């Protein structure tokens, strides 16, 4: 999957930490949230496998921008949170 800057995306609404040992780099507060791709940062080995010393595929990593007040239901209009997210956690919104 290739995502372009400006594209609307949604973070998958998944909770692997409730299902057993795992290592994930997608913060809890972003699950299911909609954001906008800022840019592709490159391709990096999947940390979810590296953490268990398993063979790790290279995945695209994106900088994704989220509306900050929308996440918390409070805050200052226009403020944003920008987070590095792997392609496997994103779907077109």
């Amino acid at each position: 999957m290739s995502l372009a800057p400006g594209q609307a995306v949604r973070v998958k609404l998944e909770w692997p930490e409730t299902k057993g040992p795992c290592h994930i780099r997608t913060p809890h507060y972003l699950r299911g949230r909609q954001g906008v791709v800022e840019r592709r940062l490159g391709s990096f080995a999947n940390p979810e496998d590296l953490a268990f010393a398993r063979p790790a595929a290279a995945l695209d990593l994106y900088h994704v921008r989220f509306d900050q007040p929308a996440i918390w239901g409070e805050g200052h209009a226009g403020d944003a949170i920008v987070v590095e997210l792997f392609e496997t956690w994103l779907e077109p919104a």
Partner: protein
Amino acid sequence: MNVLEADSGKLLAAVTALLAQKGIVQPPEIAERIAVTDAANPGQGARMVAKAWVDPAYRALMLEDGSKAAEEIGIPMRGMPPLGVLENTPSLHHLVVCTLCSCYPRAVLGYPPFWFKSAAYRARAVRDPRGMLADWGTPIPENVQLRVVDSTADYRWMVLPLRPAGTEGWDEARLAELVRDGDMIGVTVCKVPS
């Protein structure tokens, strides 16, 4: 008892003894590594910032490829994660946090400070950044947009702060002395001491 619940100092002594015995890590390597790590400090990032303030071509390079910009002034980046640089402007302020652990641009700022690793910082920076910054003595004006950068994966992020007023004509070395670690994470802004 779970062997991992042993006293931390003893655990370190036992681990280093076993690693030496097995020929994996020898004590002189540890001493050398500490010396190398101690050499990375906020003064490195401050040199980059000062150069970017006086040299537009360097500023452009720094925003395009932070790692390359660091290497260009002799900061070792080999084996380090890629460095991204976030530029503050009169209408945009950046704040860096790592809510999942403590990812920090160590190559250019050194060891992460205590506050950066604390639960309060990690919790508040994404949810109440303006309140947290106000407590810090860094109120963000209403007309300035705030961007919190949660460092979750393979990049490390530093902020290129705004050059303070009253520094016209200063050379790089004098400018670099103004820049503190907090300015390059976004918890403080760079100021000329009064």
